[in-house]
């Protein structure tokens, strides 16, 4: 073909390709047969060409597959999907091919901290979601070459679209199935998570006909802050994107309402609500953002409901999935629906929406004004209606407005206004809810949401924490009577227990120990009541066990140990594991339970029981590391379990005194810490762990052991190096004083009094600097005294009494300061000081 011919082909192709197929032959007929044949053959290839090319290029770029490879404790069996975020495989646990999992790998995470962060967030989001219609998180970790993965419940099912087609579902059955999907999305929203990528392929229906929601890969925590914007992600599937995703506008729960609407449309109609012609951005933008979706040809209320959900303008959609689902239920029951055909509703909403801005900007909306709006809006309408609208406003304030306001710089004032206004609405609603359990729970959820916002506001003052506690109390005040009336109601109980636990945490953080303890006990009591009625429900038992573990870990130790809680935290979690023996997360939680229980026992000086628990913790942690040798978090957990077990045997006044067993534990701790450091050679925490393991191991070795000196010396060097970087770390310096004393004692035992004295001096010197820097630092003074006592004794042993005498004034000053700070802990030191003075007399 000559260049001239090619140019003519090009011109003709450009011209006819832009035309609908029907109009092409007329134009083609006007041209030379040769040119025409060429263009016709190009047109024939036109449709599939782009896909073909992309397939070839991605084929080569993707060529080395992961099939058959080991991923943590699993083996990848076959690829089941790919997305912008990574690859998904069906996998099985090594050695147990009956347990199928879906393995999601983020191959991008290795290259980009952003992707790693997003992946980590997905894992965190999934970990917080336990719902029968959401695919459950089982496990997570990294492959040997550092690619992070998540193991999820494997769902053997088909997409909701294929299912509806296969089962030839009637519109009513479609609606009923769809309501279950709404339930899952609502649950996510209550946990402040927007999915953002809802589409038929992400909703699988299993053999029991239940939906499972998948892929929270681009989901977002509603209050995750301004860091990750929706626009930077780019929608994965243009056809299922909401306009605000393409336009880069705020993503809210209404984005999910839109996508749910598209799904319902598709299963009812049997085809997509809209498809994007071509691949250009412009085409996507026009279809998604501008072209209204053609109404469903069903007629009646159902078409109106779907049309309301898929409005291009978020303000015109249902304000929440609940409202959407309510209308579907109304349709199924033959009741009138809320989304009216006339647009009065829309106009009213629009008016309210304008007022939200006022709220956010200047707190113009007060209770009085609310009265005014209500009058405008709901003249001559039933109270029920008004109530529904006010409820919508409160929700919108909490979820939509707060979301957009908090990303503004210096938005604390605006946030406070939003919170205050939302509280006023909720207080109003609370007086009107009557006996409607659903509404009561909704108001309670609103109060806890406010409590969360209040407690989390940037740099929360004590006041804000107090108001957070007050909001949580209101939520608890609504839920507690409901739970009392029906103690077997799982969801209410779990919500209530969560509220009590959060309150306990806030109280503990603000050192209100008695209150924290009482709240944590209430969380336990609530879960106990449910567990009694659902003894076979692993979710309930696990939540109970977690409440008990939380008490042992965060509350006990400040209070007298409650042995009952200790025993039950463990037996409950053991029962959960018996119900789901393969669940990695449960195994992990059980190990935590053992460790927390052991710590309570050890602090309560019951070292024999502590030993028993720590030994079990070690066993589970060893299993964990065997299953995932590359997982740094599990390795560190194992190291800490060895440390706890070693401490029970040796090193504390109430330790069991088994030096040999302690050495064995500390040796393993040391090995784990060494491995950890090899995995992360420059990590500060790994270096410190390593130094502390050397310190423990070295200190436990018998007197005269040469290796002890080397271990303690290296430990000291590491601590000094880290302290050099981390100048303000007082705790680290306290450890260094301790270490100087331990090492000095070793030298003294070997008769090396000169070196011993150098170490004691160094310890006293560090303490002196620390005490000078911080007049309120008690341990600087107590540890300074300990170092000084050792130094004085060493001087006296080498017949340098005068030097010992010279230490007295400084030591006396330390003692007086320590006594002023805390008389009780200074008392034993005062005795030692008196004895020293007597010796010198």
């Amino acid at each position: 073909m000559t260049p001239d011919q090619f140019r003519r082909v090009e011109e003709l192709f450009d011209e006819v390709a832009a035309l609908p197929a029907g109009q092409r032959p007329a134009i083609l007929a006007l041209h030379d047969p040769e040119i025409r044949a060429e263009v016709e053959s190009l047109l024939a290839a036109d449709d599939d060409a782009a896909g073909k090319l992309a397939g070839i290029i991605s084929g080569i770029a993707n060529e080395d597959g992961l099939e058959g490879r080991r991923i943590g404790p699993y083996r990848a069996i076959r690829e089941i999907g790919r997305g912008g975020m990574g690859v998904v495989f069906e996998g099985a646990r090594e050695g147990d091919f009956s347990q199928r999992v879906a393995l999601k790998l983020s191959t991008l995470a290795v290259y980009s901290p952003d992707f790693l962060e997003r992946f980590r967030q997905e894992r965190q989001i999934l970990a917080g979601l336990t719902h029968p219609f959401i695919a459950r998180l089982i496990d997570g970790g990294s492959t040997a070459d550092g690619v992070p993965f998540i193991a999820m419940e494997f769902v053997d099912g088909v997409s909701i679209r294929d299912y509806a087609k296969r089962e030839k579902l009637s519109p009513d059955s479609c609606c009923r199935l769809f309501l279950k999907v709404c339930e899952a999305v609502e649950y996510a929203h209550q946990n402040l998570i927007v999915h953002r990528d809802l589409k038929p392929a992400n909703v699988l229906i299993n053999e029991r006909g239940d939906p499972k929601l998948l892929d929270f890969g681009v989901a977002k925590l509603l209050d995750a802050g301004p860091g990750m914007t929706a626009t930077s992600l780019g929608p994965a599937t243009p056809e299922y994107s909401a306009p605000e995703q393409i336009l880069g506008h705020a993503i809210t729960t209404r984005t999910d309402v839109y996508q749910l609407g598209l799904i319902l449309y598709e299963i009812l109609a049997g085809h997509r609500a809209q498809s994007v012609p071509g691949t250009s951005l412009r085409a996507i933008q026009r279809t998604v953002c501008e072209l209204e979706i053609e109404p469903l040809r069903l007629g009646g209320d159902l078409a109106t409901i779907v049309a309301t959900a898929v409005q291009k303008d978020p303000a015109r959609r249902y304000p929440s999935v609940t409202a959407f689902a309510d209308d579907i239920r109304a349709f199924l029951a033959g009741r009138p629906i809320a989304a009216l055909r006339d647009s009065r509703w829309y106009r009213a909403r629009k008016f309210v929406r304008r007022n939200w801005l006022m709220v956010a900007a200047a707190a113009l909306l007060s209770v009085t004004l609310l009265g005014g709006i209500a009058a405008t809006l709901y003249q001559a309408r039933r109270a029920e209606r008004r109530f529904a609208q006010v409820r919508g406003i409160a929700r919108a304030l909490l979820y939509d407005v707060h979301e957009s306001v908090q990303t503004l710089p210096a938005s604390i004032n605006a946030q406070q206004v939003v919170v205050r206004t939302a509280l006023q609405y909720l207080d109003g609603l609370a007086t009107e809810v009557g006996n409607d359990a659903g509404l009561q729970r909704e108001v309670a959820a609103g109060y806890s949401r406010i409590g969360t916002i209040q407690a989390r506001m940037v740099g929360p003052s004590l006041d804000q924490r107090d108001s957070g506690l007050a909001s949580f109390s209101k939520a608890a005040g609504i839920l507690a009577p409901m739970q009392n009336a029906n103690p077997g109601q799982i969801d209410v109980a779990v919500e209530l227990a969560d509220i009590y636990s959060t309150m306990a945490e806030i109280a503990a953080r603000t050192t209100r120990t008695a209150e924290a303890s009482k709240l944590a006990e209430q969380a336990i009591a609530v879960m106990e009541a449910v567990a009694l009625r659902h003894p076979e429900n692993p979710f309930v038992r696990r939540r109970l066990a977690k409440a008990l573990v939380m008490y042992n870990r965060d509350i006990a130790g400040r209070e007298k140990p409650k042995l009952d809680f200790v025993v039950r935290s463990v037996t409950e979690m053991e029962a959960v594991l018996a119900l789901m023996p393969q669940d990695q997360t449960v195994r992990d939680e059980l190990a935590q339970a053992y460790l927390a229980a052991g710590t309570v026992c050890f602090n309560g000086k019951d070292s024999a029981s502590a030993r028993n628990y720590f030994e079990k913790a070690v066993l589970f942690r060893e299993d964990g590391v065997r299953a995932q040798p590359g997982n740094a978090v599990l390795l560190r957990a194992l190291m800490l379990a060895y440390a706890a077990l070693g401490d029970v045997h040796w090193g504390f006044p109430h330790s069991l005194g088994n030096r040999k067993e302690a050495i064995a534990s500390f040796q393993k701790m040391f090995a784990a810490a060494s491995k950890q450091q090899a995995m992360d050679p420059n990590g500060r925490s790994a270096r410190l762990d390593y130094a502390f393991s050397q310190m423990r191991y070295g200190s436990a070795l018998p007197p005269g052991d040469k290796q002890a000196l080397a271990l303690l010396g290296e430990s000291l060097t590491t601590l000094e190096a880290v302290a050099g970087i981390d100048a303000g770390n007082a705790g680290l310096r306290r450890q260094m004083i301790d270490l100087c004393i331990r090492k000095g004692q070793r030298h003294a035992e070997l008769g090396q009094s000169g070196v011993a004295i150098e170490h004691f001096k160094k310890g006293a010197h560090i303490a002196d600097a620390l005490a000078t820097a911080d007049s309120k630092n008690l341990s600087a003074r107590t540890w300074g005294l300990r170092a000084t006592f050792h130094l004085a004794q060493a001087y006296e042993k080498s017949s340098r009494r005068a030097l010992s005498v010279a230490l007295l004034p400084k030591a006396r000053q330390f003692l007086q300061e320590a006594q002023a700070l805390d008389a009780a802990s200074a008392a034993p030191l005062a005795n030692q000081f008196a004895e020293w003075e007597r010796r010198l007399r």
Partner: protein
Amino acid sequence: MNMANGQEDKQEITRLLDRWVAGERAVLPELARILYPQWKRMAQAYFRREQAGHVLQATGLVHEAYMALADLRPRGFESRREFNALVGRLMRQILVDHARRVRSAKRGGDVPHTTADAALDVASLRAEEFLVLDDAIGRLGEMNERKAQVIELRYFGGFSLEEVADTLGVSVATVYREQRMAEAWLGRAMGA
């Protein structure tokens, strides 16, 4: 993110970029060789699509690869245009190298033919197909250079229509038309 393994590689890349600016197009394979290990993984991630046929959007990842190279960009790249063109060309070259490696691994002959080799067979077919496509892009370029450039920038560089238009100094509509015919032409060559 580290583009190159070490300082030496970095210096070598800078030196090669300098030569590219000076008009020495022959340095491309050498540049591709040094960047190959990192870009291979990036390319894998980049070309992962939910389904073939979607518009190739520049992902954050390719952007990062780009930025990493941009760090080393000598002053000679006055405009982004020339640099964008280089990125598309490099990605293509890297995939060509990769396909050749896959093919020669298959032809190595010391691998016994068992069922376990099925994966390798598929890989080899894919490599072969890709090299045919690369060849076709070359032929298209001889006929109309800009069409080949559009394909390079869109498919290999991951640039948006607007960016490609900017790089080539033409309108978006032109890029769209060029791309459509280029796709049809290449698609026909590949039996679409």
